[in-house]
């Protein structure tokens, strides 16, 4: 991982974003919703509001910092939830096969046939926009690929000799899945998960952009959405949070790529 320059770049970006999210609000105790200066103040004019102010005179820089917290939190938590749902379903489907596999995969396909963004919008709209409903709906639309990936891995590992040996020695199914199969199926899942965090951040931003964000929390997508209509008068309200989304998603993708290189034994042996 540390050998690939892009992976390192991604890691640096992620560390930076995480530290901003964790420590930033400590440095800026003021709420990002507070009107602090005159509205539409251009960036780089006042050192107290380095990135200018938005339509109500709120500090864009403070919004970026508090927004990092929401965006990363939603990305990480919803990915975790998706993994918690997707991995067991995929593992059971792959391991037991037959009717269990059929049932679980049809269930998964049911979610996959609905366009994920449309489903997320519907879920958030029905559940009322809040941080919980957003995390839940992103998790609901992003677990199926996990389940399918894990199932595929488990299917191929299921026939390996060491798994057969474990079966012969009378190990319980749970033990075999948890101790023998999953650890070996994990590397592609980790790669997928890092990309899922990026997708989740984008999904959250899109939802907030459409006005379906948590109205009590500032996020990058909200800032872009709220600034969109005044983009002709004040580009900075949309551009800075937009760049923040771009960079953090890029960073996560680079990490995913780096992890893929590092965890794929075939690639590493070829010395890539």
């Amino acid at each position, binding site marked *: 991982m540390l050998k690939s320059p892009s992976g390192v770049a991604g890691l640096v970006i992620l560390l930076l974003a995480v530290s901003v999210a964790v420590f930033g609000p400590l440095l800026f105790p003021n709420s990002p919703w*507070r009107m602090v200066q005159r509205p539409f103040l251009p960036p780089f004019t006042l050192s107290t509001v380095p990135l200018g102010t938005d339509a109500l005179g709120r500090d864009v820089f403070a919004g970026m910092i508090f927004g990092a917290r929401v965006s990363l939190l939603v990305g990480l938590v919803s990915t975790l939830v998706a993994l918690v749902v997707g991995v067991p379903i995929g593992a059971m489907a792959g391991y037991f096969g037959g009717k269990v596999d059929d049932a679980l995969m049809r269930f998964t396909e049911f979610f996959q046939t609905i366009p994920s963004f449309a489903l997320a919008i519907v879920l958030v709209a029905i559940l009322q926009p809040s941080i919980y409903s957003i995390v839940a709906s992103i998790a609901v639309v992003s677990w199926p690929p996990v389940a399918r990936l894990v199932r595929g891995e488990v299917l191929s590992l299921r026939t390996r000799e060491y798994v057969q040996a474990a079966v012969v020695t009378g190990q319980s199914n749970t033990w075999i899945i948890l101790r023998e199969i999953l650890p070996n199926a994990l590397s592609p899942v980790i790669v997928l998960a890092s990309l899922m965090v990026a997708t989740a951040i984008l999904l959250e931003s899109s939802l907030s952009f459409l006005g379906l964000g948590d109205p*009590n929390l500032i996020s990058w997508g909200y800032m872009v959405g709220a600034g969109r209509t005044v983009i002709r008068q004040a580009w900075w309200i949309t551009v800075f949070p937009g760049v923040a989304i771009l960079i953090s998603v890029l960073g996560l993708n680079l990490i995913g790529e780096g992890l893929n290189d590092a965890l794929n034994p075939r690639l590493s042996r070829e010395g890539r």
Partner: protein
Amino acid sequence: MSKRVLLGLLLACGLTASALAQEPKTGGVINAVIQPEPPGLMLAMIQNGPTQMVSGNIFEGLLRYSPKLEPLPELAESWSVSEDAKTYTFKLRKGVTWHDGKPFTAADVLFSVEMLKQTHARARNNLAQVDKVEAPDDYTVVFTLKQPFGPFLGIFEVGSMPMVPKHLYDGTDWKTNPYNNAPVGTGPFMFKEWQKGSFIRLVKNPNYYEKGKPYIDEIYWQIIPDAAARSVAYETGKVDVLPGGSVENFDVPRLSKLKDTCVTGAGWEFFSPLAWLWLNNRQGPLADKRVRQAIMYAIDRDFAKDVIWNGLGKVATGPSASTIKYYTDDVPKYAYDPAKAKALLKEAGYKGEKIRLLPLAYGETWQRWGEAVKQNLMDVGMNIETISTDVAGGNQKIGDWDYDIAFTYLYQYGDPALGVGRNYVSSAIAKGQVFNNVEGYSNPEIDKLFADGAVATPDSKRKEIYAKAQKILVEDVPVAWMLELQFPTITRCKVKNLITTGIGVNDGFKDAWLDK
């Protein structure tokens, strides 16, 4: 120096003189935006804002209203009131014809009154004090009231009481009458065609009773669903008139600066939309008057006016907009004073209980306003949680009284008895409605004042009663009054005389003309 001043004076005088001397020119086509597309144009049955705006130029009422809300002749050329203020006699204009050529007579007025009582909820309310309507001859109509009703001369505006052609509607099923889709009125413009989703076209009524009017040949009401696209349509010259509310507030300054662009806030005096926060008086911390007063002190309403509404409108002083009859500013004042708000909250024993805030889902401006008010209230230590919903969801919550604070704005219709009292008297409390007394305020004294005020004579007595009511209400803060809203109308300057009455564009094309 002095020469210059003199020259300037001369120039100024010359300009004024030439402006006064400007004779209306005939001809031309006007493109105006209508937003949103109206559900229909039959004004007697549909009273949405956009319907009133288009159809107010097709139909007419007995009276028009000046920006000061004085009645002006329209279909009635004169009127008189009896000594006991119970009999109103209207003399109708002679020689008025419907768009299909049939004459307009007193029979049409009688029919319209009967029909509107069934199809028009507000007209039914306004006519509640009417005992009988008679037509002694073809051009006289006499309304007899059960008791004197002060605001009676204020109910004949075209959107409140449009005249309907009896010969086309009598004896038919009103809902399915084919003329609903091609309305026939007496107005200066006739309905021509409606391409759904694209435009509504009105053409000049060549037989209009005021000779020479209207001056414009045709009006195209353009339907453009996206707010940004509406601004662009104006900038590119596709439309010449942007009625109030058709573009977002933050676009107004930019559009106003364009060449040959005129902006006015006039033309809403009859409606006088007033924005306020419903405060749920029934439960929780807001049941305490001191907490409600704290909210008034905590909110920076000048900021809302200057920043969110781009300086348009006026900070409200109480339940009546300043354009409404019997308005008084002799009431307790609530300036922006967070320290006082904090003190009042402390005195009331507020301990950070959660308070839910419902913004109005009418677009950017209202969303930003909700955020600013939330921040104002949080700054004085109130624990506010914003609930985000769509229009229907918000209406349901308000109707179910399932809110603590909720944004709204309502029309006032010129007279406290028509548009103000309904929001504060206890008889107007009913679950499920989003107008009237939603906040659950109940004060027998106020009930009595509004009941007396509606029927009191003479005017000075009414004035006294309403002044008292306003004072009590402002002290009690049943709702938190925010702003008298102003919806600017943006036009090319070549469009002249469009806004001359208290309902503005709604009946404005009668006098409008194009300076080519």
